[in-house]
């Protein structure tokens, strides 16, 4: 097995615990498109081309409610604005291996591929980071596409009361803990948590999420300056 294949498989394996949480989400996204009156072409086209779940559901729901196209698109793009921060953050990690076509590497950037690459992949010396990142996304995209189609055909049949969607943040939590190496990281996480708890419910269009991330970045950066390398022992 080549190192590239091995790296792709490693990325796929590391991200796989999150799959159980993606499926109910994909079912909802697919079912939303068909209940808005559209067919499989729109379901597949949207999940392939947009490739960002929360914005797909928001855009479809707003469209079905009769919102103006500008509002539909604007809201969905605001939801995706966090991807700009992710891209800025992951760029130096995948840049050394990337060539002229590196802009294309933006498409596989989703919460999950970002999380696994930044918390796990980049520290592994047995893999190449670009195929690892792409491999993690491929398995996500496959499951995402498949569950969108199943949701479109059969509806969102996994009961919401099972709360399987909670698997995604649980895996994020597991990825977060090892990323908290220094005191400034812990403080950044606490600042973000407080800001998110307060801002997410009151700010529109998920802007609270982005505000919380920025507050955590600024706090962590300021504290890092004061305590450059105080390690936490957890």
């Amino acid at each position, binding site marked *: 097995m080549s190192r590239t294949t091995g790296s792709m498989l490693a990325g796929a394996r590391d991200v796989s*615990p999150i799959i159980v949480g993606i499926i109910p989400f994909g079912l909802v996204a697919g079912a939303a498109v068909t209940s*808005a*009156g*559209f067919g499989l072409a*729109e379901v597949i086209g*949207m999940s392939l*081309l*947009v490739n960002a779940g929360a914005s797909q559901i928001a855009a479809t729901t707003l*469209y079905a409610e009769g919102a103006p*196209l500008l509002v*539909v*698109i604007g809201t*969905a793009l605001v939801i*995706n604005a966090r*991807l*700009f*921060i*992710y*891209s*800025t*953050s992951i*760029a130096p990690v995948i840049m050394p291996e*990337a060539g002229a076509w*590196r*802009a*294309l590497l*933006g*498409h596989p950037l989703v919460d999950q591929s*970002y999380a696994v690459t*930044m*918390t796990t992949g980049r520290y592994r010396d047995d893999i190449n980071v670009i195929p690892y990142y792409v491999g993690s996304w491929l398995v996500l995209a496959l499951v995402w596409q498949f569950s969108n189609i199943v949701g479109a055909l059969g509806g969102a049949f996994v009961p919401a*009361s099972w*709360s399987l969607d*909670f*698997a*995604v*943040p*649980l*895996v*994020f*939590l*597991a990825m*977060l*803990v090892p990323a908290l190496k220094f005191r400034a*990281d812990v403080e950044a996480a606490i600042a*973000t*948590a407080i800001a*998110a708890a307060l801002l*997410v*419910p009151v700010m529109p269009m998920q802007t609270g*999420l982005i505000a*919380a*991330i*920025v*507050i*955590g*970045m600024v706090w*962590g*950066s300021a504290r890092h*300056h004061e305590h450059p390398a105080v390690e936490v022992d957890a």
Partner: protein
Amino acid sequence: MSEQAAFWVVILVLAGGTFLLRSLPLWLQGRTPAPRWLERLLRHVPAAALTALVVTSLYTKTGGAYVVAPARILAAVAALLVAVRTRNVIWTLVTGMAVLWMAQGVLGVLSG
């Protein structure tokens, strides 16, 4: 414009805009040296982003309003403890889901 054409406009414009958001920083990377303050800020993106996503999931959305979900908070606290102790993704996931289901059951009985 037909309904279908209008929805394809949404799909294509959203896809193009999302691609730009994702790709511009990658494309621009390395053209100018990143200033120190930006490097310091970016160090904290993974922790901040994951934390924000986890905290957001502790709310459920009903009719556009965010409502705190106590069962999810209990589950997240239990999962956090397991994550700190074991550093194991599967154990964190299993504990979190088990506590969530139990808490939902108990809270359901208490409130119903």
